[in-house]
């Protein structure tokens, strides 16, 4: 039976996997492209401050800087653990 599965299994096209992986990593690279040099540091320090009060993961924080004409908006998203959930 295993052998039959093996023979019948359709080979996943590796080029499609490559494309999906690239789309994700390139989107990530681009989001960091125009950001000021202080952003990684700012992100780290903000995370430290939040962690003083709530225990969150590294990926629970999402920070972005959007520029519009003459002003910039710093957007900070933090996913907090559910209340009552022990951390």
């Amino acid at each position, binding site marked *: 039976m295993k052998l039959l599965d093996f023979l019948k299994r359709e080979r996943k*096209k590796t*080029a*499609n996997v*490559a494309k999906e*992986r*690239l789309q994700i990593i*390139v989107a990530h*690279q*681009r989001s960091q*492209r125009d950001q000021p040099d202080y952003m990684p540091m700012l992100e780290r320090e903000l995370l430290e401050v939040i962690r003083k009060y709530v225990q969150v993961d590294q990926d629970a924080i999402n920070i972005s800087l959007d520029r519009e004409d003459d002003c910039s908006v710093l957007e900070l998203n933090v996913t907090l653990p559910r209340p009552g959930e022990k951390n």
Partner: protein
Amino acid sequence: MAKIIVVTSGKGGVGKTTSAAAIATGLALRGNKTVVIDFDVGLRNLDLIMGCERRVVYDLVNVIQGEANLKQALIRDKRIDNLHILPASQTRDKDALTQEGVEKILIALREDFDYVICDSPAGIERGAQLAMYFADEAVVVTNPEVSSVRDSDRIIGLLSSKTRRAEIGESPVVEHLLITRYHPARVTGGDMLNLTDIQEILSIPLIGLIPESDAVLRASNQGVPVTHDQKSDAGQAYVDCVSRLLGEEVPLRFHEIEKRSLLARMFGGGRK
């Protein structure tokens, strides 16, 4: 006033030097006075690909440091009169390359030539940054392979921020995508990224597609840029690429599996 074109990629081994040599040769064959500069200080190789390694006396760094003038350092190509090579130095340390020095050389070359082709080293260090800094146009060489595509995207980012045009707010560097080592059969088999996928990910216009070809190794073995091998697929593909750089519209070739006739298949049909 010459146009300055950088041939760059981020990743090494994707065909920057092969492409710089082939494009410079193609532009010169079309009657343009062309010079190709090797920016890979410490690891020069353009001289080998161009077949003038034994005629190198002075190099880029000698000129920057005032030990030789430009005329002494420029090597005239032995096949095409209006093609010149400016080799990189082999021994000096990379800090010998300065922005002021490079600018001086490029300003001088701009007066005398129609095209200045800058062959960038791999990576994103000083040599690569200086090779692209003064560029008007950029040819981003990419293989259909994940690390090459990712690095090309990084380079595209640098082109739009770390160049003179970006810094002084002039019209941006015109970017072109050159896909090399393309293997249509593997694309059809689903094991190689296809050209539309690569274009979609990098979102810059395609200037050429060079198929994986035996002719490229034959060319570098002999020190004759592959553009001279007009019987080969790669040679023809570079000629197409040069025509597009010159603003002509040329249909894409070599991106589909070659349909060979029965006779050709029976007799193995000639060299590629």
